[in-house]
């Protein structure tokens, strides 16, 4: 609550915060907000320009683009959130045990993260989702894997510093079980840096999902996913410019909102890293 | 006495950040004559460094608010001068030595180059002359192998050596005033004396006036002719060093001296000052030291002015008999 109040105080993050609320609202209530069905084709209305009936025009199957963008909010933002949370959860788990247990397990895990980091993010996501087969769930998995090393390393660093504190050393001596120590002492210390990292990553994940969709590796038709919509819309770029343009603007706005919020949260919780 | 090198009158300033304001200095008075070494003493947070930085206008402009007083350097009104005008004084007329020699030098430039650029900045020397000047400047601060040192990076030098380099840079343009802000605090005890002697010698040779800032009364006692004692941004006492240290008038100065370890009397316990440092966001109306003062009485609810007790020895305390109002 206090964090939200601080976010609102800065005019830069205030705008972003209210936009975020709008995005969340649209995502949650999208079925109620779409003026037309985002899925059903209406061939007689195909490729209409923007007007008062169809704010953003219609696509090649006569579907209302405005409705598809609204429906796509849930898909694109939801999948991005899912991918990052999954990555954070698994990465934190692996990383804290790696740091806590140490020895060769730690070595193996750390070298594995090195290997994953040897690929540019997008290239690895692309190869993984190609290998898993094109679908939106696989795209989410690919993104979760790509982001995994960051969370693993973050968690490991924290786990290492915590496990050297006197308290945990004492707990170890008394034979307290490792899972208990990890849960009670390592996880709470991790929360702040992990939350900061998650908030910084969501925007990037939305971009990645959209990019994979654009390259034909993410959501498949007729799912109203933003990237895939632009991929199809590309064919109509020069004559029906509104088709890919509005959809792209939706991605841009969503990502910039998440990025500004992410920066804001980082500055709040981790002032050193910010300025 | 000839014209003063530095005269600070009634200086008050505060740091204003979003929503909060802290009064850092209140009615500070300080003056330095030509060639004179004046000490400024006080514990950390007393506003010593702020005073020093204010003289060169090096405080962060966005938050610093001057509310009263003046700083006059060699007849120049610093506070009324523009940044460009003050920038011309820095390094040329006012030299600066900071506390932390480990971080005071640019880590990615050789010692020689750093000195070279300072020298070129303040003189009309040609490149060759300036390079020769680098040598002599290093020799003057008693660095034994200047030809080696000038090609080294700061991390390759000890703290004492670095501080010598910093002094060489500060003295390069032969300034009228040298401000040394805790120049020995970060150094080993054995090196401390060398650095202090060096500063004193250079000041004497060049006729440079020095403002020596320290929390260490021992340092002040050995080097300065006069001393000003600062507490929570206010001058509580000021006068000739021997006078102030031997016969401190203000209860704070007395407590400060008592808290020094006394070599002659090993068995006595060190005294600490009871109570807490005041909250500068809410500077009290009355005497700033009253909450911790053992001699507090009714009068202390009004702020005491700095008054002359005797022979240039001034004190801001109601409990002290003074010759003038």
């Amino acid at each position, binding site marked *: 609550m206090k964090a939200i109040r601080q976010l609102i105080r800065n005019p830069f993050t205030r705008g972003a915060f209210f936009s975020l609320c709008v995005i969340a609202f649209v995502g949650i209530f999208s079925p109620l907000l779409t003026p037309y069905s985002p899925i059903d084709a209406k061939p007689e209305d195909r490729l209409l320009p923007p007007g008062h009936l169809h704010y953003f025009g219609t696509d090649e199957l006569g579907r209302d683009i405005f409705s598809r963008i609204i429906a796509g909010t849930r898909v694109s933002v939801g999948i991005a959130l899912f991918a990052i949370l999954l990555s954070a959860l698994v990465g934190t788990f692996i990383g804290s045990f790696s740091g806590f247990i140490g020895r060769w397990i730690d070595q193996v895990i750390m*070298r*594995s993260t090195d*290997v*994953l980091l*040897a*690929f*540019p*993010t*997008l*290239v*690895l996501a*692309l*190869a*993984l989702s190609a*290998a*898993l087969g094109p679908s939106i769930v696989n795209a989410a998995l690919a993104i979760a894997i790509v982001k995994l090393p960051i969370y693993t390393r973050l968690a490991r660093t924290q786990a290492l510093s915590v496990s050297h504190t006197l308290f945990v050393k004492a707990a170890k001596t008394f034979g307290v079980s490792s899972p208990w120590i990890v849960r009670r002492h390592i996880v709470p210390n991790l929360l702040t840096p992990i939350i900061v990292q998650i908030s910084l990553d969501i*925007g990037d994940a939305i971009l990645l999902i959209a990019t994979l969709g*654009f*390259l*034909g590796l993410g959501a498949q038709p007729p799912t109203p996913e933003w*990237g895939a919509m*632009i991929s199809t819309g*590309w064919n109509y*770029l020069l004559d029906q410019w509104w088709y*890919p*343009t509005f959809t*792209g*603007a939706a*991605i*841009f706005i969503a*990502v910039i909102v*998440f*990025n*500004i919020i992410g920066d804001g949260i980082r500055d709040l919780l981790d002032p050193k890293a910010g300025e | 006495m000839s014209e003063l090198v530095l005269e600070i009158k009634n200086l008050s300033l505060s740091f204003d950040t979003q929503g909060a304001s802290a009064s850092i200095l209140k009615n500070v008075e300080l003056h330095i004559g030509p060639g004179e070494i004046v000490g400024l003493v006080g514990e950390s947070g007393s506003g010593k460094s702020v005073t020093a930085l204010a003289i060169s206008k*090096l405080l962060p402009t966005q938050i610093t608010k001057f509310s009263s007083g003046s700083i006059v350097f060699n007849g120049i009104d610093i506070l009324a001068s523009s940044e460009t005008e003050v*920038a*011309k*004084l*820095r*390094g*040329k007329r*006012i*030299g*600066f030595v900071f506390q932390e020699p480990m*971080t*005071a*030098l*640019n*880590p*990615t430039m050789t010692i020689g180059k750093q000195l070279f*650029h*300072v020298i070129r*900045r*303040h003189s009309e020397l040609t490149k060759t002359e300036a390079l020769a000047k680098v040598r002599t400047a290093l020799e003057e601060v008693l660095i034994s192998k200047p030809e080696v040192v000038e090609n080294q*990076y700061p*991390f*390759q030098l000890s703290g004492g050596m670095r501080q010598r380099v910093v002094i060489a*840079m*500060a003295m*390069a343009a032969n300034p009228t005033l040298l401000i040394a802000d805790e120049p020995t605090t970060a150094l080993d005890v054995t090196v401390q004396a060398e650095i202090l002697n060096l500063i004193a010698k250079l000041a004497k040779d060049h006729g440079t006036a020095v403002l020596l800032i320290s929390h260490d009364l021992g340092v002040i006692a050995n080097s300065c002719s006069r001393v000003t004692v600062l507490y929570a941004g206010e001058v509580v006492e000021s006068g000739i060093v021997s006078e102030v240290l031997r016969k401190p008038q203000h209860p704070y100065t007395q407590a400060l001296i008592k808290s020094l370890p006394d070599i002659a009397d090993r068995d006595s316990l060190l005294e600490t000052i009871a109570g807490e440092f005041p909250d500068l966001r809410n500077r009290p109306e009355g005497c700033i030291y009253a909450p911790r003062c053992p001699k507090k009485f009714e009068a202390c609810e009004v702020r005491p002015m700095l008054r002359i007790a005797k022979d240039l020895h001034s004190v801001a305390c109601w409990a002290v008999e003074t010759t003038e109002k």
Partner: protein
Amino acid sequence: MLRLIRARLAMLVIVLFGVSIITFLMAHVLPGDPTAALAGPHPSQETLNSIRTQFGLDKPLPVQYIKYLSNLFHGNLGTSIRSQQPITQEILAFFPATLELVTVAFLLAIGIGIPLGVIAAVKKNTFSDYVIRLFAVGGVSIPLFWGGLVMILIFYAKLGWLPASGRLDIELSSPETITGFYFIDALFGGDKETFINVLKHLVMPSLALGYVQLAFIVRQVRSSMLDALSQDYYLTGRANGLSHRFLVVRYALRNALIPSITIIGLSFGSLLGGAVVTETVFDWPGMGKYVTDSILGRDFPAIMGFTVVIALAYVIINLLVDLLVYSLDPQTRK
């Protein structure tokens, strides 16, 4: 220095070994079965089996891996399903175009990004700072393909100033290969029309690709500049009366560059990733276009070949960046 290189090379071998395992797993274990793509729709069991035998897919995994590794070691990335040509040769043919695009984008990004980052830090919390930061946050948030799209709509469709695809107009013949960079080759070739045409083709793709990196660079340089500006040595420099410009460049920026270069180097890798999208958008005949075509054609070996090459390039670039940082920092150089 030598010891550092040796340690880094050892690390590089381990990482590349890991990279080979990952690409192998992706190609051979994950569900996207390459034989299915080869055999076409509704294959008979016999066709599948014969393909499996042909590609050695019936052998146990470790045997397959060793074969794969030895092929990699000899620079053999396999055969493309679509073209039946060796993938190594195909990628090598597309490589210069990608390198040209990425290099120009990178130079644009640092050439504009570093000064903007410095200005934002020096003028912290002023109007210019806010504008630059907004510009930067836009860069990390804009979908590359959408940025390209808007540029095409404006500069090609609306204004007709710039071409929207390829490296060169079709009626012009490509310059004689010297470096593989068209704009350099065209310059040496001496044909002014070709040179200008090449530059026009470069503008939009390199700007679109460079903007993202520029944004990263601005943010990084701004934050390490702010750090450097608050250091004691900067105050000493000011107290010694050094000029503002000199202090900003030789005191602050020189020190801020050390942490920045690591990040800037890493961002070069994401340029390689971004090239995939940019090349697709602008129909740029490079490795990225090659890989998206391979994705559409379900050409699995080609995708994995591309992945290996990019990972190798990325790892080598990071090694070079590390060495650069070490040589910039006097403390590690000695």
